[in-house]
């Protein structure tokens, strides 16, 4: 039950993009085409889950025993940066089709704040290992959901008569605001 609450909360109520504002750079950058948005969402979910679980292990197995909690930022980011590079090499070797689909997005992910954000939040919220796994999966899927919805809207928005200066990030953000309002309707679900 508790796990379901964590999952729903990360997916809908406290959606990473629309509530925590994490991962906005790719959210704006890769949301103009539906298919690339879907690939980006998949890549982020994948890396997020791995990064969060590995960070959890580092934090509780290495840092806590020696009271080095203050090293969390440095060690997490080091782990994430290395991990993304490893994953990229690994996928490239093992599954070229998957690399074709996700690979070009992977370098973008290192600096995606959603990844580091999920690792830091699991520590802040004091989740255990299983909870961390569920939370990061929910957060990743939440990111995918938001970016895919956004891409769907933006594809239609192309035909709208938007004022010249508002085009691009401006109209995307206002649309995201409306989306955030809509997502507020999910509040109370975890009750």
């Amino acid at each position, binding site marked *: 039950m508790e796990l379901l609450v964590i999952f729903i909360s990360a997916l809908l109520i406290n959606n990473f993009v*629309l*509530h*925590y*504002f*994490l*991962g*906005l*750079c790719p959210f*704006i950058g890769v949301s103009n085409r539906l298919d690339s948005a879907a690939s980006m969402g998949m890549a982020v979910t994948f890396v997020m889950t791995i990064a969060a679980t590995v960070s959890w292990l580092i934090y509780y197995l290495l840092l806590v025993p020696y009271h080095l909690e*203050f*090293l*969390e*930022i*440095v060690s997490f*980011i*080091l782990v994430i*940066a*290395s991990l993304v*590079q490893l994953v990229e090499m690994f996928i490239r070797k093992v599954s070229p089709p998957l690399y074709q689909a996700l690979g070009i997005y992977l370098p973008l992910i*290192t*600096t*995606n*704040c959603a*990844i*580091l*954000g999920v690792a*830091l*939040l699991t520590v*802040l919220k004091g989740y255990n290992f299983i909870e961390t796994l569920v939370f990061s999966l929910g957060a990743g899927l939440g990111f995918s959901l938001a970016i895919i919805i956004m891409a769907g809207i933006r594809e239609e928005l192309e035909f709208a008569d938007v*004022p*010249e*200066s*508002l085009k*691009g*990030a*401006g*109209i*995307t*953000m*206002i649309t*995201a*605001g*409306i989306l*955030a*309002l809509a997502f*507020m309707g999910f509040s109370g679900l975890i009750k």
Partner: protein
Amino acid sequence: MSRLWKEFIKGWWKENPVFVMVLGMCPTLAVTNSVQNAIGMIGAVTFVLIGSSLIVSLIRKIVPNQVRIATFIVVIATFVTMADRYLAAYYPELSKALGPYVPLIVVNCIILGRQEAFASKNGVIASLLDALGMSIGFGIALMFMSSVREILGSGTWLGMKVLGSWYIPWQVMILPAGAFFVYGFLYWGFRAIDKAFTKG
């Protein structure tokens, strides 16, 4: 001299990191619900940007290419941790309000972007001026965002009442959705003014 001056002021408007380059969105939106939070964030970002620009421009020649990003990010993370610890020790309230967004300065694209694009290619003085200019640009944008949001959302500015008791706070403005709206409209205004100027 004029070149250095140019590096310094370009971040204020022409290459404003927030409204022109659309970088560092997370803190711009997340911590601008009050002016106080915004000031805390500006301080932290300025410190990290200047500190890491200094170090990166010093070490740029000895770092091999494959681990360039990893090394830079470690340098940045070190400064971020220092800022984070400092806030936790001396401004616990602020540190709590900013939550995970201080650690997240590490992946703020403004910082890594500046190191990659500028500090790793330029000398110490130019890098410092660039960092300072970018911080000011970031600061301008954050002050705009947070002022609008706090005044409309709570009727106060930096905690001081500016709108009388007749004003019913427009609470959406301090909610996440409000951040998106305010950014969208400020972006619109910024671009429209910029256009008018370039034409004139």
